[in-house]
């Protein structure tokens, strides 16, 4: 095998053969090492949460990757290719000043203009004390109703944007709620309080740039309406055809109302889980 091992021959085909073999082996090994090194590099560059979110985002279906501007009706159709992070979106400003679409039809579900919405169906509400309150948005509330259990992060721990903020259990299904913003856990609430977490953002909460990646006003309207459509389709169970809306009002605790529906898929796409 090597010139110094017994049985080695300085013949053309022996040398050629072994040369080819070693080339192949080196190629394979270097490929793997290369991949590993680049992976290590990535890990240093970006936080784990970011990486996970990026890959999950890549997994999202087209229809779930609409740009906020499309949702607001500022453009006809635009797909986000920036993992919903408008803070680092080069083209954000190009469309930001365009007028949003006018009339908004009734959703049968209300949302607050003061709140900033995350695509994982959480809202962010800045407080005077420099923290922000975080809660499940109305649609999520309606879906989940009262969770059977809630697993909160530790007080004072740091959480990353799009990382799992807290977990809930409902009818044996686990729900992971993504954090709408990065920062330190300042206070822990509960479904009764109307908010789940208070976070002290890493960046200045009063600087508009901090919350730039979250949906506001008309965007929220467009987004929620599409989310409702999606749910309609996903929860349409064979046989019966229960609509989400009951006399225009969304049933509270939909998971209890229609337990037989494919909640796996529904929750996955609602809370942007992969």
């Amino acid at each position, binding site marked *: 095998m*090597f010139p*110094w*091992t*017994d049985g080695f021959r300085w013949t053309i085909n022996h040398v050629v053969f072994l040369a080819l073999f070693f080339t192949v082996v080196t190629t394979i090994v270097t490929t793997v090492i290369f991949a590993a090194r680049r992976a290590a590099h990535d890990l240093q560059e970006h936080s784990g949460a970011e990486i996970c979110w990026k890959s999950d985002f890549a997994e999202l279906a087209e229809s779930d990757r609409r740009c906020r501007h499309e949702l607001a009706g500022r453009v006809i159709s635009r797909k986000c290719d920036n993992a919903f992070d408008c803070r680092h979106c080069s083209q954000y400003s190009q469309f930001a000043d365009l007028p949003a679409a006018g009339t908004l039809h009734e959703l049968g579900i209300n949302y607050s203009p003061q709140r900033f919405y995350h695509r994982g169906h959480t809202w962010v509400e800045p407080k005077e004390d420099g923290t922000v309150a975080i809660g499940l948005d109305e649609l999520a509330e309606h879906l989940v109703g009262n969770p059977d259990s809630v697993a909160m992060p530790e007080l004072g721990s740091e959480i990353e944007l799009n990382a799992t903020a807290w977990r809930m259990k409902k009818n044996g299904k686990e729900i992971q709620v993504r954090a709408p913003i990065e920062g330190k856990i300042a206070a822990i609430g509960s479904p009764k309080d109307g908010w789940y977490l208070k976070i002290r953002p890493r960046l200045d909460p009063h600087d508009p740039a901090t919350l730039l990646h979250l949906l506001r006003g008309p965007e929220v309207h467009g987004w929620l309406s599409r989310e409702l459509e999606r749910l309609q389709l996903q929860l349409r169970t064979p046989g019966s055809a229960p609509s989400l809306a009951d006399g225009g009002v969304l049933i509270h605790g939909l998971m209890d109302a229609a337990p037989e529906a494919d909640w796996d898929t529904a929750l996955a796409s609602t809370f942007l889980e992969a």
Partner: protein
Amino acid sequence: MKITRRDLLVWSAGATAGLVFTPVPYKLLGDLSIWTQNFPWIPQPAHGPVDVKESSCTLCPNGCGMRVRMAAGWPVGVAGARTNPVSRGALCPLGFAAHQLNWHPLRLRTVRHRGQASSWEEARTAFSKACAEGPIVIIDGYPGRAASQHFENFVQKQHGVYRVVLGAESRALTPYEKWSGVPAAALGYDLENARTIVSFGAPLLDGWSTPGRFTRLWAERAAGMAEPQLRLIQIEPSLSRTAARAWQWLAIRSGGQAAFAAGIARVMLEEHLVRASGPMPALTLAESAQQSGISPDAIRDLARMIVAQSPAVAIADDDDPAIAALNVVLGAVGTSGGIVQRTKRAKSYLSAEPVIPSARAVLIDSTVPWDFVPQTDAEVFRFGAWEGGPNKADWLLPAPGFMEELTDIPTAPTSAVETYAVAPRLVKAPPEVQSAVQFLGQADPDLMPVDKIIHTRCENLFRARTGTLCAQQTTPVATIPSVEKLEEQLRNGAVWMGEPQHPGGVRCKLSDWPQATRSECPPCDSLASWRAPVLPPLASKLYQESSLREESDRRNA
């Protein structure tokens, strides 16, 4: 500077990396590869000083000369010894693996009395008790040895009987003894001078008598020659190995041998092809043709050819008087190329019955073929080195195996010249075995022991001053200074060869064609020809793995 742990780590890492570029790891791997092969359960040959001993094979009464390679005191290989004038360097297949026989799984190692384990003491007391009660019979399968002499001395003192079980080759010569008075043990075939050999089923090319003698002769004078100097005609029902290689094979109807011989004789006499006015067979040619399944013409042609190609001799596979008679008619008895008398001094082993009714004990020597079973109600003491299958003996007594005892080698049964050799003890016998000689020796201590007998025989040879001693070079006995020298040479594998006798001497008086066919039980119970009690394991293996031997031959496989 101070060496931190880090430095050490770096250094050792570097060293390991560097090691890869030295031959060390590769050499280690190479050694590993060798090491992976020494599995403990694989037997390794014992190494030790190697030397070669000349001796003679004692498996059967033909005593072929053999060379034994010894390593660390054990025999590790057998080859033929070219110095032996009769076997001329050839051995039968069994000989080549015979050195492994002593470890054969069927080796007898304990005294057994009617199936129960017993001891030599009990055997000895039982034997002397029987001796005290009445006459005893000792049966020998290999007459003429010093041991045979020992047996005879014993029975003489005990008023017992000494009997011999002869092999087929020897039995084939007994009819001539009946007609001429010359002991069969003194007769032999003068094959070297024959031009035609008519074999009636005798396995001439398949271990007949001293294998080397005829096979070499055949190879030199017949094999593959269009016009051989020696014509081998095989008369046999089936295509045996000999038939397959013979110059001519006549597929005779089985049992038709006597008739066929009669037919040949008739043709010879009717057509006056032969001088001798021998007895005319009763059978007509047609009858013999009908009984033998060979056409009258074929018989006639053969008869003429035989005479034309004389000297010729017919060889029977057993004591078939018709075939002997054919030789008489043919004039092949007492003539060169026929049946000759090789010595004046020989005993007759013909006997009415092998076992006398009044016998109290029958002692059977280990040389007697295993399938010999005496018809007697006396107590049977059976010596044997290997268990050869069921046997009615009361006592099974483990005897020394191959090369485990000193013995001498008298002339081979069919040889035309007289020979004498000695087979020394090359391997130490296990303590639990005893030869019949030792056994009798303890029963009667004043008997002359075997080595003494051998010594006296050497003295006789030395005094006679005839013959030559065949070793690396042949030396006339007359030129050997002392009897000790002679004996020493014999014990180192030299073979004494007597003067070739002039033909004649043996004259057969045969007035009318013998009616009797071959004797049904020669000279007693079922016994075809000499047979090894067991085959060397390698022989069994190869017969099992090749298409050479038929199943029947493949014993103890």
